[in-house]
């Protein structure tokens, strides 16, 4: 069984790489959708269709559409690309809602103060709103990344050589069932726990300034 360690490690690496890429794509798509529906009134309906549609569909069917149906429309994707696009866009719908909550939690007074100081809307966005975003969205975003990691197991069905796929290959070759599945479950659990610990740590880091300003006001 130990001889299969490199196979499992390779699968783990693919899973991590795919999750990282999908998270980046998802964050970008989510932010783009949220900014579009804030500023472009005419595209609001389209954004709504995107968010409601993708949140209402299982990830598996989206992957099938991308991998099996898209070639019929002239779009041929290899499994990894289809997987990253599918996972990324699917989670983009959730990230859009997370960004919305983030923007909503910025006090109105800040925006009013900035615009009365003569800052343009673009500068208010890039200098006032966006810099606060990481601290505001971190807890729900980490939660979403955890869901994304677990959903990435589904990519094995469209033959992406990630952790679950590589492990099922071992099962098929060795006919050992219990050990590979147990290792698989433990690896996912460890991955998820690791990300959630990392999230807690960076949450403490990112919100440190809040505590500092509190102390600052108390001193003055």
């Amino acid at each position, binding site marked *: 069984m130990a001889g299969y360690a490199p196979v499992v490690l390779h699968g783990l690496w693919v899973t991590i790489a795919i999750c990282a890429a999908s998270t980046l794509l998802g964050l970008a798509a989510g932010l783009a959708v949220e900014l579009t529906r804030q500023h472009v009134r005419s595209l609001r309906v389209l954004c709504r269709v995107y968010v409601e549609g993708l949140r209402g569909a299982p990830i598996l069917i989206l992957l099938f559409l991308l991998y*099996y149906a898209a070639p*019929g429309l002239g779009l041929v994707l290899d499994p990894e690309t289809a997987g990253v696009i599918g996972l990324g866009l699917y989670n983009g719908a959730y990230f859009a809602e997370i960004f919305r909550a983030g923007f909503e939690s910025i006090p109105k007074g800040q925006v009013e103060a900035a615009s009365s100081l003569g800052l343009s809307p673009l500068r208010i966005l890039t200098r006032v709103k966006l810099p606060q975003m990481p601290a505001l969205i971190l807890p729900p975003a980490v939660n979403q990344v955890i869901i994304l990691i*677990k959903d990435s197991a*589904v990519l094995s069905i469209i033959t992406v050589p990630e952790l679950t796929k590589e492990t099922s290959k071992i099962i098929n070759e060795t006919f050992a069932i219990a050990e590979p599945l147990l290792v698989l479950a433990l690896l*996912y659990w460890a991955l*998820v726990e690791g990300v959630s610990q990392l999230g807690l740590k960076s949450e403490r880091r990112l919100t440190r300034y809040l505590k500092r300003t509190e102390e600052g006001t108390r001193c003055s």
Partner: protein
Amino acid sequence: MDLGLIIGSLPALARGAAMTLFVSLTAIALGLVLGMLLSFARMSENRWLSAAARFYISALRGIPILVLLLMVFYLLPAVGLEAPPLVAAIAALTLNTAAFQAEIYRGGFAVIPPGQIEAARVLGLGETRIKTRILIPQVIWLVTPALVNEIIVLLKNSSLVSVIAVTELMRVSQQLVSKTYKPTEVYLAACLLYVLMNLCLSALGSRLRRRIGGASAGGRP
């Protein structure tokens, strides 16, 4: 786009959707019982029981549902339990949702004022009766919005049981594709059916949320 094909395959897809609903609702109902027991175990004063429940909840929330499904499907026969795919599917979904529901109920129990339990004790009600007559009815009502959310998540997750050959919506559409070679039409139709079911559920959820008035309990985001 072949609209005739979509219309022709609707009866089969509808049968698949009915199976999807059956699997999901059965798992939710069984998960309700198991989740409630787990949340009581988690809040129990017995340290071992509480630790065991915490371990279960943490582990089951950390394992992808596809992996859990494979474990149930392959490991049950290995220990001598021959389970048909449908049973394995419902078992796996139940084990998963129970862990998430346990956290939902814990959030619900935390909202109930402790004064109610003290008052019930003073009136001489036993601990079991306090649970079944006072706590559980209120908690179920309080957490309905979160529970509807959980049904949506579970309904989407139920598409994975197609992997072990349960003929629900996903599996039916795969079968249709292998017969007709028209993946675009069939998968789009199936996708729309899923979205439709979930839009109905989320409309129900927001109605309930308005009636209950923002009593929010934990659960999946």
